[in-house]
Structures are given as structure tokens and as C-alpha cells.
């Protein structure tokens, strides 16, 4: 582990010349076959204000950051029970006894403090390299006490940005179907399943939520009027309107990458086919016309191609259509049930496949090739969806008996359950961070 960090630091020194002012850019290649996780210790935050004010934040900030770092897949947080920290050890470079941290194996150390001001809190966090005894990051944020998780996510994001040069997923959100009320309703939560709120409360069947590329709107199908219509809801104003209510199906929508169009399955021609409509609901183009079922469109990042599911060969398989010339090519050939394609920003397609009677998640190159299996021997694993940056996958699994949401890295590592609640959670959509 020690050597890993040193190698990374070596790489980093190589980068110094390219990226002059911010020296601390560590390049972590998440597409490397395997990643050695950094051992990180996140110490309880110090209350820098008056002692009686919000003492529980001390533990909460540390817990959220530690959880974030764990979910990122880059780190292995050390249990605080192993800490040798002197209770009064400060949070500045001079005050820290780095030996106490390096001896328990911590390569990186996060320390921080907070000051409560009315219903707000100011929080500061610092990241240290324990072996070199150096501070590599320091950040301060102010926000409402009730938004402490968001403040902690922002600090975690700064840590990841410092180490990888890119933003993390910590400020992104999930939309999903939840059955807690006994009906199927759409909910939206933070990326880690916390702070969930109801988007629909129709007491009906709501399905297939899809965040717009800018994260401000969400599409879904609902039976609230007795049959499946496509709805578009503005998440800020809460205003909702019907986008498509044609006879038969109005399901499985996908945004075009520019957010100006929506592909969905309609059955107006007597057979489920994919059509492109604009945000006024007008049909712009018919994208598939085939005797079989065509569903679940997902666009390539440049919007020039579309992955979708068709049973034209006799069983549901994934196809890729080049929109310019209309040519469709079959992508999956293993097994007789491959569905739910999601095309990542990093140009990889994730899908679910029936494998010996249960469903597992696979990825494949959009140009073809060998599929890579990411889940195995753990119940059914379905509805995969990429994080906006294409580095993580959220999916639903019934590995613990009922369906809940899980996230994992693009190569299937670090599978973690993120949703809680009495009901089942399925059909996740991953929306971007809202600026």
C-alpha cells in the first residue's frame, strides 16, 4: 500500500511540470485492471465553536466523508476503533503526530473542524499524507446545519478532485421507483440513498424515471390516468405535464444527449417501436420499425448512435443503430435475454442478461467484443445505469431478498447497497450534480 502511494506520487511529480500551480494532482486510473485502495483515516471533526453546540456533528461529518470515500472505490477507510489519536490532537499540520496514523496503516488522513453560527455551520477539512507528513488539501464550506450531508459531500468531492483531478459522484442524485407506500412512486435522493423525497404520490404505478442531462427535469411513465402516459416534471418548480399520451404504450423514455429530444416506445402502429419526440410531444422521427418489440433506447454520448432492445431475432437482444444511415447491428449474442442497455459517457454499454435463470450485469464495447460480467452469484441484478461521469454503475438487486439499489465501479468492484426503506427500490436513473 505504501509503495502504491509512492508510485502515485511519482506519477504525480511527473505531472507537476504539466500542471504547475496545483502540485497535488494524483492520477488514478480507474480503468486499470485493479486498483489498490488507499488506506484512509477520517478523524472525528473538532467542534471549534462553543462546546455544547451540535456536538453530534463531530461524528456525522466524519461518517459521511468516510462513507463517501468508501463508495468511491479508491479508499479503504480504517475503523475509528483502531485509531491511536490523542483526543486533543489538533487539526493543523503542526499539531498532528503522523506516527500515530502511519502505524495503523493510514496512508491518508482527513481531519476537520466546525463552528456553528445560528442555524448554519462552517466546516473545514484537511487532507494529509501521513508518510510524508504533508498537508495536500484544505477546504472550508458554509451551509445550513440541516444540509450537513451536502457540506460533507462537498468536502469529499474536494478530496477526490485533489487526488484524481476530476469531480466525484458525491453531489449527484438518483431517481428511482419505490414501493414503500404500497404503490409504485418515483423518489429522488442523494447519490448515497440519503435525503430521499417523493416526486410522485399518485397512488398508482409510476415507472422508468429519467433525469434530463442537466438534472433539472425528470421523465417517467405513470398509470395515474389509468393507462401508461409519459410525464415530464420540472424538479425545481414541481410543475408536471403530460409529454406523450398516445394510444397504447408511452414508455421507456431516453433523453437525447442535448436534452432537446426524447426517444420512447409507442405502440400506435400496432407494434412497440421507438420514436423520437420533441419536448412538446410532437413526433420528429420514427427510429425503429420492425415486427418485433423495440424498447429501452439509450443514446451514445455524441447522440449519433442508439442502443436499444429488440426481439426481432426471437429473443430480446441489444442492438446498436447508427442514426445517420439507419443501420442496426446486433450487439449481444450470449444467452437469450439481454436487456436494459445504458450507454456511458466513457463509451461503454452496460446491460442485464439472464444467466442460468438469474439476471446479472455485464458491460460490452459498443463496437462489439467480449462481454464482461460484473455481478455473479448474488440474486438478480437488473436496471443498470451509469453515473453521469461513466465511472460507476447503479443497479437494483434482490441479493438480500428484496430489491434495493447498489452501486459499483465500472469494472464491478466495490458493490455497496445504498438504498434503505421498507419497500423495494428499482429502476434507478443517475442525475448530475446541480450547480
Amino acid at each position: 500500500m505504501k509503495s502504491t502511494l509512492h508510485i502515485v506520487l511519482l506519477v504525480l511529480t511527473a505531472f507537476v511540470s504539466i500542471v504547475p500551480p496545483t502540485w497535488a494532482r494524483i492520477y488514478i486510473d480507474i480503468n486499470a485492471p485493479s486498483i489498490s485502495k488507499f488506506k484512509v483515516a477520517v478523524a472525528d471533526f473538532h467542534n471549534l465553536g462553543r462546546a455544547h453546540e451540535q456536538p453530534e456533528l463531530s461524528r456525522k461529518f466524519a461518517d459521511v466523508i468516510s462513507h463517501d470515500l468508501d463508495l468511491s472505490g479508491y479508499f479503504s477507510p480504517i475503523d475509528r476503533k483502531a485509531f491511536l489519536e490523542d483526543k486533543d490532537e489538533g487539526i493543523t499540520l503542526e499539531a498532528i503526530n503522523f506516527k500515530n496514523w502511519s502505524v495503523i496503516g493510514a496512508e491518508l488522513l482527513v481531519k476537520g473542524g466546525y463552528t456553528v453560527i445560528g442555524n448554519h455551520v462552517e466546516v473545514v477539512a484537511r487532507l494529509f499524507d501521513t508518510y510524508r507528513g504533508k498537508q495536500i488539501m484544505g477546504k472550508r464550506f458554509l451551509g445550513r446545519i440541516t444540509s450537513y450531508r451536502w457540506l460533507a459531500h462537498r468536502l469529499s468531492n474536494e478530496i477526490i478532485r485533489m487526488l484524481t483531478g476530476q469531480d466525484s459522484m458525491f453531489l449527484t442524485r438518483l431517481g428511482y421507483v419505490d414501493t414503500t407506500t404500497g404503490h409504485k412512486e418515483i423518489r429522488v435522493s442523494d447519490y448515497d440513498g440519503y435525503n430521499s423525497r417523493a416526486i410522485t404520490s399518485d397512488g398508482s404505478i409510476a415507472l422508468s424515471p429519467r433525469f434530463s442531462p442537466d438534472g433539472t427535469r425528470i421523465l417517467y411513465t405513470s398509470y395515474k390516468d389509468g393507462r401508461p402516459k409519459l410525464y415530464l416534471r420540472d424538479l425545481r418548480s414541481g410543475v408536471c405535464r403530460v409529454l406523450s399520451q398516445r394510444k397504447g404504450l408511452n414508455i421507456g423514455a431516453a433523453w437525447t444527449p442535448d436534452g432537446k429530444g426524447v426517444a420512447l416506445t409507442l405502440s400506435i402502429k400496432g407494434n412497440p417501436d421507438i420514436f423520437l419526440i420533441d419536448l412538446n410531444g410532437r413526433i420528429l422521427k420514427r427510429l425503429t420499425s420492425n415486427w418485433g418489440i423495440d424498447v429501452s433506447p439509450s443514446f451514445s454520448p455524441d447522440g449519433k448512435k442508439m442502443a436499444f432492445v429488440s426481439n426481432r431475432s426471437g429473443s430480446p437482444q441489444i442492438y446498436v443503430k447508427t442514426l445517420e444511415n439507419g443501420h442496426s447491428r446486433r450487439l449481444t449474442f450470449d444467452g437469450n435475454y439481454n436487456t436494459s442497455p445504458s450507454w456511458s459517457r466513457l463509451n461503454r454499454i452496460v446491460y442485464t442478461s439472464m444467466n442460468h435463470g438469474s439476471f446479472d450485469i455485464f458491460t460490452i464495447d459498443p463496437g462489439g467484443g467480449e462481454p464482461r460480467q460484473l455481478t455473479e452469484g448474488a440474486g438478480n441484478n437488473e436496471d443498470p445505469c451509469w453515473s453521469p461521469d461513466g465511472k460507476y454503475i447503479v443497479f437494483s438487486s434482490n441479493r438480500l431478498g428484496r430489491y434495493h439499489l447498489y452501486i459499483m465501479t465500472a469494472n464491478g468492484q466495490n458493490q455497496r447497497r445504498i438504498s434503505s426503506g421498507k419497500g423495494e427500490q428499482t429502476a434507478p436513473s443517475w442525475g448530475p450534480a446541480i450547480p
Partner: protein
Amino acid sequence: MRHKTNLVMMVMALLVACAFVMSSCAKKQVKVSKGAQPAVQQPTAPAGGEGQQPTAAPKKVEAGVTPEYQKAEAERQARLKELAAKQKLLDEIREFENEKIYFDFDKSDLKPEARAVLRKKADWLLKHPEYSVRIEGNCDERGTNEYNLALGQRRADSAKKFLVTLGVDEARISTISYGEERPADPRHNEEAWAKNRRDEFKLIK
């Protein structure tokens, strides 16, 4: 002790009285076709209707029946017939709606048994043009939600097409897919899945 004896005697008297009333009722009640409602009108009541006092002293009928009686009896028979017909229709509707058709996994083509059921339904619909039918396509829980919604639609449409080829007006048939959202059997096994891959039929007047 004495109180108890009195009580027993009272109960017995009541039972005898009841038995008498019931038997006299039973005599008056003409056989009603099974399941139908009991007659609303008493056959001996004059046609004048309920609550009306006889205008004169009741006429003594020696033999045979009065025209009033005959009229009342005819009306009663007509009413009974109507009720029986209504009941028969209700039974038919119940049977129509209870009889589902089933599909194989990931299939929307009609099996021979399904065709037989649909032929019966087509006959019925042709005899009852005042009814429309709504076909609801359903799937088992396995597989992807969206694909199952499309598959459910295809299952409903398969049944619709067949009914149309049997002469039922297309305008009388609507379809909807519930995908895997409305299982008939909520269990997670082969038996439940087989029951859930189905079309249901709802009659609408």
C-alpha cells in the same frame, strides 16, 4: 327453575310460530330458478299494489281464478323470467371475465387452449353487441420492466387480432399492458409465473 321453564316454553312457542309462518310462506312462493331473487310481489295481492286498502269487501272466489289474479301472475312470471335472464347474463359476464388466457415465457403467440377460449369469447361478443371488451396484457416478474410492458401489449394485441379475425368489430376492443405490475399470484416461483403470464378480459357496456 320456574323462570327457566317459562323461557323454554316461550322459545318453543316462538319456534312453532316461525315454522308456521315459514311454511305458509313457502307454499305461496313458486319455485324460483336457482340464484334468482325471490319474487317481489305476493301472488295473492291484488294488482292494485301494496298498502292499498281493498275498496270493497274481498270478493269470494269459489273456483278458478279472477282476471286480476291471472294478470298478477303473468306479471310475476315475466318478472321472474327477467330476473333469471339477468342472473344468467351476470353469470356469463363473470365467466367471461374470469376466463383468462395464458402464455409461455417471453412469448405473445396464442396457444391452442388460448384460441379455444377466445373463440368462446368471440361468440359471446357477437351475441352481445352492446358490450365492449378491454384486454389487459400481463407478464411474470422476470425480465426487464420496459420489455415486459411491451410484451404485455403484444399479448393483449394478439388476443385482439384473433377476436377481430373471428368477426368482432375492432372498435369494440381496447387493449392495455400492465407489464409485470399486476401479478395474479405474488409468489416467486414457476407456478406463480405461469399464472401471471396472461391476458385478462373486462367487459364494458
